[in-house]
């Protein structure tokens, strides 16, 4: 068996009866023991994909292979998976212990009561909820409920763990704490995990790799840092990064890239980084706000509309050719609204996208 392709999703499709295509031929693979994030805006198909892997939804095409075996005609309960729901889905009438034990008290995998209890205790210890054993879920905080639902998902020692936005019902501080706990836990247990989220920061910090979805299609399947530094297309560039990337409408003619009030000769770009021929025409030039540097010989002359302080950094907001743009500078450089400044683009970190979103540079 190929450890690198522990989970293989091949040309997965989901078209609903009303004709809506939620998933259009999605393929990816996951290495054994990895924690992979499925990222994307709401309605992009990430949860649909997760539910098809879990068997809660039937795909209309393609295949899902885990550990060398197709799961297509296997019922959810026989897929040997753990699932953590966004709303935790704890059984409100059972205690924490009963909740965690539940998978071992039903179906084919019934275990003797004391054995089940012992296993449950083990996982409750792992998730630090031993002392809540006799509480009902209604009395627990969001974070505690989340731990219970993780313990319940792990108790059958499934081959994969699926998590659907497990942190979105928690407050910001707790979210940071729990996401670290989740990462440590799944690494400790060594379980292959798929983690659905719409929060890029969460995905970047927790995932071994990130699969970015949009409109039912995978936009990019890469390490988090590569998603940021080397976006495949305009969507990825726009979606990843905070503050968002600056986009300038440009025209390429005569080996020159010309925007409104600025011009960059094409030869200044690194010729090895072109992904195709740069034909003349309309393009979007994108650059991350931190790659606009204050400099007297900068290409862009701007008047600052607004300044926002975000901790260590200063966000300068300005309007270029009618669109709002941002630059990220050090806190020390004191710029006030109304100031006139010049920005120099870091040309190593510039992207060019075709009108259809494809990256050309």
């Amino acid at each position, binding site marked *: 068996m190929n450890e690198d392709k522990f989970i293989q999703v091949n040309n997965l499709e989901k078209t609903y009866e009303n004709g809506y295509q939620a998933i259009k031929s999605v393929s990816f693979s996951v290495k054994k023991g990895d924690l992979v994030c499925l990222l994307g805006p709401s309605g992009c198909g990430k949860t649909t994909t997760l539910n098809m892997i879990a068997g809660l*939804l*039937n795909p209309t095409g393609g295949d899902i292979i885990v550990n060398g075996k197709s799961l297509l005609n296997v019922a959810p309960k026989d897929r040997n998976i753990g699932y953590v729901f966004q709303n935790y889905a704890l059984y409100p009438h059972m205690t924490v212990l009963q909740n965690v034990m539940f998978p071992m008290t039903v179906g084919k995998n019934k275990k003797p009561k004391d054995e089940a209890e012992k296993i449950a205790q083990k996982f409750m210890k792992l998730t630090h909820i031993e002392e809540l054993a006799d509480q009902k879920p209604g009395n627990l905080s969001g974070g505690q409920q989340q731990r219970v639902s993780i313990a319940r998902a792990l108790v059958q020692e499934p081959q994969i763990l699926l998590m659907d936005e497990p942190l979105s019902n928690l407050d910001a501080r707790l979210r940071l704490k729990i996401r670290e706990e989740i990462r440590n836990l799944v690494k400790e247990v060594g379980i292959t995990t798929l983690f659905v989220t719409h929060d890029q920061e969460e995905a970047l910090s927790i995932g071994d790799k990130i699969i970015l979805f949009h409109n039912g299609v995978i936009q990019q399947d890469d390490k988090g840092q590569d998603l940021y530094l080397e976006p495949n297309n305009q969507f990825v560039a726009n979606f990843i990064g905070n503050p968002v990337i600056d986009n300038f409408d440009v025209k390429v003619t005569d080996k020159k890239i010309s925007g409104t009030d600025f011009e960059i000769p094409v030869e200044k770009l690194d010729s090895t980084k072109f992904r195709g021929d740069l034909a003349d025409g309309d393009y979007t030039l994108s650059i991350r706000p931190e790659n606009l540097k204050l400099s007297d010989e900068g290409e862009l002359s701007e008047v600052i509309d607004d300044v926002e302080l975000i901790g260590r950094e200063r966000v300068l907001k300005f309007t270029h050719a009618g669109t709002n743009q941002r630059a990220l500078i050090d806190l020390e450089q004191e710029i006030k609204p109304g100031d006139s400044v010049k920005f120099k683009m870091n040309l190593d970190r510039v992207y060019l996208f075709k009108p259809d979103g494809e990256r050309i540079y």
Partner: protein
Amino acid sequence: MKDNQKKAWLFLAPAIICVTVFSIWPILRAFTMSFQGGPLIDLQFNGLSNYQYIFSDPEFWRAIMNTAIYSFLAVPIALIISVVLAWFIFSKIKHTAFFETMFFMPYVTSTIAIGIVFRYIFNGEYGLLNFLLKLVHLPQPDWLDNPSLSLVSLIIFGIWSSLAFNIVILMGALRNIEPNYYVLADMYGATSREKFWRITVPQLVPTLAFLLTVNLIGAFKIYTQVYALFNGQAGVGNSAMTAVYYIYNKFQIVGTPGVAMAATVVLFLFILFVTFLQRKLMKKVNS
């Protein structure tokens, strides 16, 4: 999970079988029987003659008239009393739960048993009602044995029986009215009466429409109250004959099931029509 989980039919099977045999089949059977004559064991097709019979039977028309008079008097009167009572209990006094519990009692009790008490209270010779009427120098009619009063007694009994359900439903609706409406009205200095007419009544309209139609449909089917009040008769000389009583009579006593089913079909279609009107009304009220 499969998109077509056939096992669903397994879970639905007991309900579907029971419904088919005891709800769907009897409707179809009632239709066919309404075109048949003769006793139950020897039914013969006789065309429309059952319908011709009932429409020319003065007894049938009396039953229809009685049912209509009962419905269109008892239902609105009971509804008005219920609204006033529910509003008073809800807004004017303490111990709301106590009064709600008290007023709901008739809903859970046997009509037959309460009918015995009412028969006793209505008794022309030693009944409590006539004793009270005598105290205030009013005439003391024979409530049960005077054919012209049978319907009046039935209406009184019917109002008494239907207050319970109305009050409890109205209390539920009153509780659902956003309390801040009243807080706001208080801030603008609205009087109690203004609050009732300007906030409560408009908010109650859907509930009132619902109660009106449900009560009417219930009233069209009145039977047990008649049986209870007149001790197994439809009043003296059938003076309180109602539609379902007529059907029961033709089916069980006279032994002409075809005629009974023709009357059933007429009643059924009429109720269906009112239900249809109700749906329309509720849709209009809710939108």
